[in-house]
């Protein structure tokens, strides 16, 4: 996959498949430390130690229709190729936390890609899940929690056309406001 955002979509799908009720997707760009950190955390069924160890190996999957799990090993290889890592912390019955980090400026690092698209699609397509999205860059933070929105909407679907527009714009404006403050910091440090 050519984009980190697509990997995040895939990783979040694992959380959905594990019957998580709450899923957090966090992206942290640290230009100063030259790191790009992503965390996907869920309270799904979790994995035992043995399973975690095998999941990063391409010949493991709990699925019956196909023998090879691709998502996690592919992302791990990509991160390790960019002075990064992929760690999984998991406990059966409690949930899973996957952490993956890249050297931000590494020449082979794939672009972050359409993060807003990933969030937007997950949010709309899995309405029964409580989603929390966080984007941080150089001191700025955008935190999106869908709970107040769903409470307000009641039984009105997220896929109503006007609601789709509202959600997309909310995510876009939130991320943009952080990227804007990042540019400001950059600009002022250049002056200094």
């Amino acid at each position, binding site marked *: 996959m050519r984009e980190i955002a697509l990997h995040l979509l895939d990783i979040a799908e694992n959380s959905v498949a594990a019957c998580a009720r709450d899923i957090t997707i966090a992206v942290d760009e640290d230009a100063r430390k030259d790191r790009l950190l992503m965390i996907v955390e869920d309270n799904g069924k979790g994995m035992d130690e043995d399973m975690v160890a095998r999941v990063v190996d391409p010949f493991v999957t709990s699925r019956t229709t*196909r023998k090879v799990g691709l998502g996690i090993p592919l992302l791990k290889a990509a991160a390790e190729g960019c002075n990064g890592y992929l760690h999984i912390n998991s406990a059966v019955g409690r949930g899973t936390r996957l952490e993956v980090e890249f050297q931000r400026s590494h020449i082979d690092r794939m672009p972050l890609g359409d993060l807003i698209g990933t969030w937007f699609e997950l949010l709309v*397509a899995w309405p029964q899940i409580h989603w929390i999205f966080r984007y941080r860059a150089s001191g700025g933070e955008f935190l999106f929690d869908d709970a*107040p929105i769903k409470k*307000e*909407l*009641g039984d009105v679907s997220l*896929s109503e056309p006007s609601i789709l527009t509202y959600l997309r714009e909310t995510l876009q*404006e939130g991320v943009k406001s952080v990227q804007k403050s990042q540019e400001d910091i950059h600009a002022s440090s250049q002056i200094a």
Partner: protein
Amino acid sequence: MPAVKSLDELRKLKEEALEKRRAKTTAGNIQVTVAMGTCGIAAGARETMRAILDSIEADNLSGVVVKQTGCMGMCEMEPIVQVEVGGAPKVTYGKVNTELARRIMKEHVVGGHVVNELVIPAY
């Protein structure tokens, strides 16, 4: 969440959606499902999903519920999209790129006609 967009604005949109729902006489519940396993995503399911959501927004299609599902076990047919209109049996489409997704939205979801040549027959 920073108050980028307000919940007041959302409340207004909700009232409008409820209004539309009351005005609607043919209450045919429509469900569109996109398979989003690794194979699906690699084959472009994400762009397909995007095209479906875009056409809902662009054509103002109220009352369509969009869902995702994991792997459907038919790698070579990805991206896979299923459409269920009211009580009619679920129709499964294969190799649905963005262009075909728009076509399915137009002909099946809006027009009510199954796009036969895109259907995976034996599913």
